C-alpha cells in the first residue's frame, strides 16, 4: 500500500499543488495573491501532463515503408520522419527499415491487440494506467488507412521496435525503457503559453483596478462597490 503510494509520488505532488493553488484562489483577498494561486493551480496541470508523457517501455512511432527510397524529401514521409526526433534520425530510419520483418510481425500483433480490440487489452483499471505502459494504455494512434493517399504504415511506441539491435520479443515486452512522449510536452507548452497570457491579462487588470480603486484588496473593493450601488439606488 505504502509502496503503491510512494511510486506515484508525482501524482501526490500534482494533487497537493492543485489543492494549494485552489485554496489560495478562494481564500486570499489580495488580487495578486489570487493570481499566484491560479498560477500554482495551472502549474500542477503542467506537471500532470509531463507525468502522463513519461511511459515505461515506450518508443517513438516509426514509419515503415511508404518512404523507402530517400523518404526524407517527400512531402508526407518527410514530415513523419521529423517526428523521429533530431540527432539519431538516420540510424533510426535505416534500422527501422532493416528490421522491417521483425517489425511487421510485431505490428501485426499490435494491430490485433490495440486496433481491433481496444476494449480487451486496452482496458485498464484506474491505477494500472498510471505507470505501467505496455498494456496498450497509451498507444499512439495507429492509422490503417485514409482515403485518397498512400498512408505509410505506422507502428506505435508499444512495439518498441525502433531499438535497432533489440530483440523484438524483448522490445515488445518493453519494460526497461523510460520514454518521453513528445505530444503531452507539446500540449503543455501550449497550455503554458495560455497560462502566461492569462497571468499577463490578470496582472494588467490588477494594475487597472489599483488605478481605479486605489487598492487591490478584494474586501475594500467590495465595500467601495457596495457604496456605489447604494448611492445609485438612493438617487
Amino acid at each position, binding site marked *: 500500500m505504502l509502496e503503491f503510494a510512494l511510486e506515484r509520488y508525482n501524482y501526490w505532488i500534482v494533487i497537493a499543488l492543485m489543492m494549494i493553488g*485552489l485554496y489560495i*484562489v478562494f481564500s486570499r483577498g489580495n*488580487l495578486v495573491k*489570487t*493570481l499566484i494561486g*491560479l498560477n500554482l*493551480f*495551472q502549474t500542477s*496541470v503542467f506537471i*500532470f*501532463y509531463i507525468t*502522463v508523457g513519461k511511459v515505461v517501455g515506450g518508443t517513438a512511432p516509426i514509419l515503415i515503408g511508404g518512404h523507402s527510397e530517400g523518404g526524407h524529401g517527400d*512531402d*508526407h514521409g518527410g*514530415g513523419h520522419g521529423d517526428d523521429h526526433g533530431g540527432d539519431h534520425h538516420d540510424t533510426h530510419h535505416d534500422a527501422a527499415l532493416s528490421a522491417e520483418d521483425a517489425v511487421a510481425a510485431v505490428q501485426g500483433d499490435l494491430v490485433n491487440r490495440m486496433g481491433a480490440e*481496444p*476494449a480487451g487489452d*486496452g*482496458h*485498464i*483499471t*484506474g491505477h494500472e*494506467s498510471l505507470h505501467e505502459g505496455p498494456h496498450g*494504455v*497509451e*498507444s*499512439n*494512434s495507429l*492509422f490503417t488507412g*485514409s482515403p485518397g*493517399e498512400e*498512408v505509410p504504415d*505506422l507502428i*506505435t511506441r508499444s512495439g518498441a521496435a525502433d531499438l535497432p539491435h533489440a530483440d523484438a520479443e524483448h522490445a515488445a515486452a518493453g519494460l526497461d525503457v523510460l520514454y518521453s512522449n513528445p*505530444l*503531452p510536452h507539446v*500540449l503543455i507548452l*501550449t*497550455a503554458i503559453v*495560455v497560462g502566461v*497570457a*492569462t497571468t499577463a*491579462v*490578470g496582472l494588467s*487588470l*490588477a494594475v*487597472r*483596478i489599483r488605478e*481605479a*480603486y486605489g487598492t487591490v484588496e478584494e474586501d475594500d*473593493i467590495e465595500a467601495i*462597490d457596495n457604496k*456605489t450601488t447604494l448611492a*445609485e*439606488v438612493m438617487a
Partner: protein
Amino acid sequence: MLLNDLPVLPVILPLVAAPVCLLLPNNRLPGLFASLIAAIAAISSAMLLAEVAANGPANYDLGGWAAPLGIVYRVDIAGALVMTLVAAMAAVTIPYAIRSIEAEIAKSQTSAFFAMFLICFAGLIGVVATGDAFNVFVFLEISSLSTYTLVAMGAKRDRRALTAAFTYLVLGTIGATFFVIGLGLLYQVTGTLNMLDIHERMVGQDNRVVRAAFAFIFTGLALKLAMFPLHQWLPNAYTFAPASVTAFLASTATKVAIYAMLRFLFTVYGFQFGFMDVAFAFFLLLGMLGMFVASLIAVFRDNVKMIFAYSSVAQIGYMLLGISFATPEGVAAALVYVVNHAVTKAALFMAVGAVVYSIGSSRMPAFRGLAKRMPVTAGALIVGGLALVGVPMTAGFISKWLLIRAAFEATLPVSSLFLVLFIVSTTLLAVGYVGRLVWEMTLREPEGQVEMKPVPMGMIIPMLLVTFLTFYLGVNADGLVKLAEAAARELLNTGLGTGGAF
C-alpha cells in the same frame, strides 16, 4: 479551391484580420474592416451550413495531415448551425459597435477593441469547427482571454467592469484548467486527441480514469457556460461590459460552450457509459434549479442589463433541460433554444445599449416612459421581452413549445407532467421581470426632463434586424426546426456509435 476551405475560412479569416485591425488608425476604419470580415465569415458559414446539410459532415485536414494524427476540422450540421449563428451575430454586433463604443471606450482603444472582438470571434468559431479535443481548449482560451479584455473595456463608463472582468478571468481560468485536466486523463486512457478517435477507443471502457475525466471536463465546461451554481461571473460581466460586447457574448459565448458540451457528451463519450444517466439526471436537476432561482433573482433586480443577465442564466437552464432528455427531440429543442435565445438576447441587449447611449443609464428609472421617448427602442424591448416569456409569434414560443413536446415524449426521472408544469411556472417568473420593464416603459411617466442623445442609425438598424429575426423565427420556424432535428439525430447517432466515422 476556396470552396474546399470553407470549414477553416471563418476561423482563419478573423484570426489573420485581427492584427491587421490593430494597425489601422483609431477612427471608423477598424470597425468597418471588422464588419467586412465578419460578413464574409457569416456568408461562408452559411454556405458551409447549406453544404453540410446537403452532403454530410465536412472534413478538413489541417496542413494535409490525415486524422487521427493531424488536427482535423470536422463540421457537421450542429456545428455548421452554431457556426452560422456565431458569425451572423458577429456580423450584426460589430457594425452596431462602431457607433455604440464611441461613448463607452477611449478613442485611442478603438482599433484594439475591434482586434479583440475579431480574436474572440475567431476563438468561438474555432471551438465549433475543430474535431480535435485539445484544440477546443486552445480556442476556448483564445476567446476567453479576449473576452476578459473586452469586458474590462467597459471601465470607462463604470469601474466595476474591471472587477467583473477579474472575477470572470479567475473563474474562467479555473474552468479551462479543469477542462485540460480532463483532457489529459482522456489522453492517458486513449492516446489520442481526435474526438471520434477517442470515442472509438473508449468504447467499453468504464473505469475511474474515464469517470474522473468526465467530471473534470464537464465541470470545466459548466463554468464556461454558466450552469446554475457556477454562474457567478456572468451577471456582473454582462452588466458592466460595453453594450455591443454584452450583445455578442450573451448570444454566442455561452452558446458555444453548450455546443462544446453537446460535442463531448455525445461525440466523445456517447451512450455506452453507465454513468451517463447520472450525468443527465444532474443536468436535469441543475437546469431546473437554474431556471427557477435565476428567474427569481431577475425579478428583483434594478438594473435592466442585470435582469437580462440573470435571465440568460435561467435560459441556459432550459437548454440543459433539453440536453438532459437525451432524446433527438430534446437535443433538437436545445439547439433551437440556443439559436432563438441568442437572437432574442442580442436584440434585448442592443436595445438596452441604445438606451444607455441615449440616456446614460441602464437602471430602471431610465426606462420610465421610454415608449414615448424612444418608441422604436421600446418596441424592440417589448418584442424581445415577449420572446423571452415565450408568447406565440415570437422565437421564444417555438423553443419552449419544442421543449415541452420533447418533455412529454422522453422517459425521465421525474414525471413529464411535473416538468412541463415547472417550465410553465418559471415562465410566469419571466412574465414578472419582463412585465415590470414593460410596465415602466409604457404606463409610467418619465420623471422630469433628461438630456437625451439621439441614437444613430448605425445602432438602430442592427437592433431592428435582430428584432425582426426574433419575430421571423417565431412565425416561420420550419427550416430551423428541420435543421436542428437533423443535427440532433446526427449527434445522437455518433453517440450510439452507429455513425460519424471517418
